[in-house]
């Protein structure tokens, strides 16, 4: 099978590309930095048998990334699935943010994914099968004073995947959405969190195992399924005093 991974050179995307390559799949890996991408592709090509194709693409609302991306993807007519383990957050993300940051956060965490899904949807419909896998964040469970635009974009993404699943309910196209808790990625290195971080390798294995299941949305790590209720139902009087 052949899969497209957007955000393949870091964290969960890297683990996912490793797990899929180890299972013998062909991959198209998309990441922003050509240097990271080329070593990732070299490694997977060397160790596994599938064909690994690198596509460098920096998703940035200031440049015309989608046109270049479309050009590179025009030959990809045989994809079996797309994974979107990408996202970007900023330490400056608060309730009042400059428009450049807002655009970048929304593009990286939401609108770029919608644009790419839209690009490939007809392809999957024509094939009558496929997998579209998105990754959200528990940050979007309830709005806080931190990561404001990021959380909003991820909530929008969650809603989009719900709609997508609804729209494709009568097809063989699987739409899955993982709500990620804290994951042990370089971005989180050294940070202390209230709950343990999940291992991206375990997450990748789980995504692989679930690939053909029809479940809509799940949490990773699993215990966030319980914590989500606590976060959502926490009385406002208490929630407003929390700083996390």
């Amino acid at each position, binding site marked *: 099978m052949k899969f497209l991974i957007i955000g393949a050179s870091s964290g969960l995307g890297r683990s996912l590309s490793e797990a899929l390559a180890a299972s013998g799949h062909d991959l198209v890996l998309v990441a922003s930095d050509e240097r990271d991408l080329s070593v990732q592709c*070299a490694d997977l090509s*060397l160790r596994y048998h599938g064909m690994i194709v690198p596509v460098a693409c920096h998703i940035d609302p200031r440049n015309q990334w989608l046109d270049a991306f479309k050009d590179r993807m025009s030959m990809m007519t045989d994809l079996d699935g797309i994974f979107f383990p990408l996202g970007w957050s900023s330490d400056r993300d608060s309730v009042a943010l400059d428009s450049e940051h807002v655009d970048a956060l929304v593009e990286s965490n939401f609108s770029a994914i919608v644009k790419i899904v839209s690009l490939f949807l007809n392809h999957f419909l024509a094939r009558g099968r496929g997998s579209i896998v998105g990754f959200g964040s528990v940050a979007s469970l309830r709005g806080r004073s931190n990561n404001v635009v990021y959380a909003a974009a991820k909530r929008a993404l969650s809603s989009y995947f719900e709609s997508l699943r609804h729209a494709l309910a009568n097809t063989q196209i699987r739409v899955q959405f993982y709500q990620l808790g804290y994951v042990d990625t370089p971005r989180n290195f050294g940070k202390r969190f209230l709950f343990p971080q999940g291992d991206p390798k375990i997450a990748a294995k789980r995504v692989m195992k679930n690939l053909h299941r029809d479940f809509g949305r799940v949490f990773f790590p699993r215990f966030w399924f319980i914590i989500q209720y606590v976060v959502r139902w926490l009385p406002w009087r208490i929630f407003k005093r929390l700083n996390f």
Partner: protein
Amino acid sequence: MSFPSTRTILTSFDGGVVLQASVQKPDKYRFFDSLGDVALIPRGAGLSYPAASFGSESTSVDLSNFNRLLSYQDGLLHVEAGATLGQVYNFLIKHGRYLPIQPGHPDITIGGCVAADVHGKNQLRDGTFIELVEALELFHPKHGVVTLSRTEHADLFYLTCGGYGLTGIIRTVHLRTRELPSPVVEIVTIPVSSVEDLEAVITEKARQYDLVYSWHDFTQRGKGFGKGFIKAARFVPSSEVASSFDQRDRHPKRTLYAEHRGMYRYAFFSQWTTRPFNALFYQSNMIGRSVHKMPLYDFLFPVHNKEIYFKFFGRKGFHECQFIIPFKQVSSWTEEVKVYLSGHSISVTLASAKLFVGEQRLLRFTGQGICMALDVPRSAQGRLFVDFLNDLATRTGAIPNIIKDAELSAPVVAACYPEYEAFRSALRAWDPDRMFRSHLSERIGL
């Protein structure tokens, strides 16, 4: 994108140095574009016995995410420096190749092997790790990326191989691999009645076998001091290896961490327990002394799955010293150690020897003689014993291994390494600001 930095407690593997240090763990090449004027030190698996990969004033750059294999052609393997020996082994064995020089644990990184110029199980035949390095890519914030080899920036190449990470960050390494005669070795255990017999026997066996090391019991007193055995292995011809031999990837999960070594508060090893422990270990090896076959992996990485040995030293840890003792001095060195130990209750938990040849250059642990490693539990008495050994080294012309002893002093290194000053000067000429510093480099006056 910024790369988070954290202050954390880091521990040298022997437990001798515990301090708070800054660490960054990047996974993208753009990290190198962003480095400014801060003191740095590269960090691989963090398994060095001394604090070679951290220091209180330096930011450790954890390279474990730079662990990919980049290309393989005509026996030449190009890898990122964070790739581990276990990863490389698993890849090469499928191509009928291997690295003939490997230290004892698969979690050790290639970058670490280059920086410490480690040795393997037959230094006489194979030399040290530098022999496997065809070229490497070094990054220094002031110089950018420099490709080093024996023909390109040769002086810097020799300074970096065995340079303890002080010349910059080794990003990638081109390795010369060797054809693997077979993935199985045949092992013979040869008893050695006393350490006096060692030199003759190990010299003979190192020429006959592919891989050789010895073990000795230094808790014995009198004539039996240093009683032990030599483990010698040779490759079994491929035709004799059963086709059912398991060649699946070994060691998928990391098993050795400096931070976990001291997980037990109290030490198992003491003057009461070490002697029976050694006796038991000796007997268990003597029982199985008939010729037997073993996967090469298990012989190359004898410490793998026996990590408990290091945990038995408890939170305080241990001292490990390793010396290349000139052939002419082996008898007097042994005699002095024997006399010292007869008058002190020191629990030597390990004494292991290998045969070394080669010219000693810069700060690389090479030279002619018997290489002897000793482990003792960390204590005041143990420290005095180590001081005695270092003093003995300066008197006998033995060379101490900088990457083993976490408290080796600058005067001892300067006295034992004739090119200490040359290394120091060359390092300053390359990096006048001394951007790359570690606890080790500060301690030995670099």
